[in-house]
């Protein structure tokens, strides 16, 4: 397990139409085994932040460290679950989950992740091990994608709108599933989502981001007891937290819209 530190991280995108400051001086510390959710209106830089931790992007200035190591490229210590499940369509479910284990980089690491058969059963796909991704439902694909990341035993799990493409029922079942997985085997998780209910339900701490330029607007601890179950979402404490976060996110989105309108 690992912790994640963002130290005055700035990300500026240069394009023909000008410079866009996606992130301005972000400081953030995610503790070992902590589940942190990042919420905010679209365009606030939350996906950029995740890409920086994953190593797909490099900060313009500042530094991202995972377990004290400077992040400079993607790697199996930082597992990513993408919105569109990144399963290889030519591999069966089993082959997809085993993909990472066959790579030289992971054969050189000591892995304490689950075995392929074990995780196949845990994500409910044992009966579908020989199927291709095209034969699976959206929820099954995301479970397979999560399994394929867990077997390479990453210190940090990064999730970018992992359930964003699913229907609302499947999404809520997947949230419960992820919660169970995490509660039985804690990991450092950084979850980007636009679904505030999802964020409050899953996370230990919420980072609310504001856009133009992307920055941390507020950090909200979620002091709800664990293990959490679905009924928690109807309790007054949950509703109060969710309403507070929703108000902050909406205010920021409205401000951003007003700024854009004024600029136009």
């Amino acid at each position, binding site marked *: 397990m690992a912790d994640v530190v963002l130290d005055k991280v700035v990300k500026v995108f240069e394009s023909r139409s000008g410079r866009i400051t996606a992130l301005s001086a972000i400081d953030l510390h995610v503790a070992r085994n902590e589940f942190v959710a990042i919420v905010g209106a679209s365009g606030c830089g939350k996906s950029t932040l995740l890409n920086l931790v994953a190593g797909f992007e490099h900060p313009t200035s500042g530094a991202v460290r995972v377990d004290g190591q400077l992040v400079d490229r*993607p790697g199996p210590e930082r*597992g990513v679950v993408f919105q569109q499940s990144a399963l290889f369509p*030519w591999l069966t479910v089993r082959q997809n989950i085993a993909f990472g284990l066959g790579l030289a980089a992971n054969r050189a690491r000591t892995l304490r992740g689950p075995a392929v058969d074990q995780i196949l059963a845990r994500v409910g796909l044992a009966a579908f091990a020989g*199927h291709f991704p095209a034969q699976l439902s959206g929820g099954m694909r995301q479970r397979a994608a999560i399994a394929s990341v867990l077997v390479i035993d990453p210190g940090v799990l990064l999730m970018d709108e992992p359930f964003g493409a699913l229907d609302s029922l499947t999404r809520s079942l997947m949230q419960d599933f992820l919660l169970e997985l995490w509660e039985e085997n804690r990991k450092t998780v950084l979850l980007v989502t636009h679904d505030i209910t999802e964020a409050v339900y899953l996370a230990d701490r919420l980072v609310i981001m504001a856009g133009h330029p992307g920055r941390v607007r507020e950090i909200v601890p979620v002091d709800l007891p664990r293990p959490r179950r679905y009924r928690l979402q109807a309790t007054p404490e949950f509703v109060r937290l969710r309403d507070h976060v929703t108000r902050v996110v909406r205010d920021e989105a409205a401000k951003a819209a007003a700024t854009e309108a004024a600029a136009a």
Partner: protein
Amino acid sequence: MDGDARRRLIAAVADAAILKEDDAALAEPKQAPNRDPGAASRRLTNLLLYIAFPGAVIVVWQILASAGLYRRAILPPPTDIATVLFDLVFGTSGEAGRYSGSWTDHTLSSLWRVFAGFAWGGALGTLLGLLIGLSRVVEKLFDPTVQVLRNVPVTAWVPLSLIFFGIGNQPAIFLIGLGAFFPAVLNSTHGVRQLNRTLYKAGEMMGANQREMLVRVILPAALPSVMTGLRLSMGIAWVLVVVAEILAVRSGLGYLLNDAYQFYRNDVVIASMLSIGVLGFLSDRVVVFVRDRLLEWNRLESYDG
């Protein structure tokens, strides 16, 4: 996904849940007709649909040709063509005259040229196409040349190839290979370029090094496109074998066709055309068969399943 494919998929998933493990669902579509009582009559309907149009053409053709409206030798009736084709193949009745029994030799000559041309053109084209897709340097070196040369019809290469190689197999195999080369290049380049970004990122995140990325991610992703290119190459190879045999060699179905034309044997001309059509079709089936073996997964992703 259309309704039928969706039903098959749902059936497959339900089956797999019961049978557990393995490829039960993949085998499902093949088993389905046996359990389905309407399948036999549906197959009969399909067969009738398949033969309705060619059957009608043959019947009308036979009637017109036998009615004596025009000279029989101009467009001989299907029955004459069948007789001549039989003699071309087996050399029994002598109906095909000087061509009697020559079909196998001509066919083997054509098949060899198609195979040889397809092999060098398809292989070299695929290799270059993949390299152009993978490397900016290779792209800059070769892509402009490919883009210009591919606009030159391969038939325009006939004079030069005859001057360089003389009459014989060489110019024919050169021309066929050249024709097979371009679709292979373009499609394999496209195959590499259309790689899904997320899959590439997933490979990086899992820790794939450059070689693993190439072998386990980029090439499998490019394979459907490569196979499409090879299928086009095979089609073009059959076009060009006829061109080459008319102009550059004294054997093969193209030569047979052209020679029979000189001697006003339109029955032999049409029999040759039929042979070329059927062989071209069978070659295409071979490529499709290989493709489907390699790309079970791709079939599942596409609309017509």
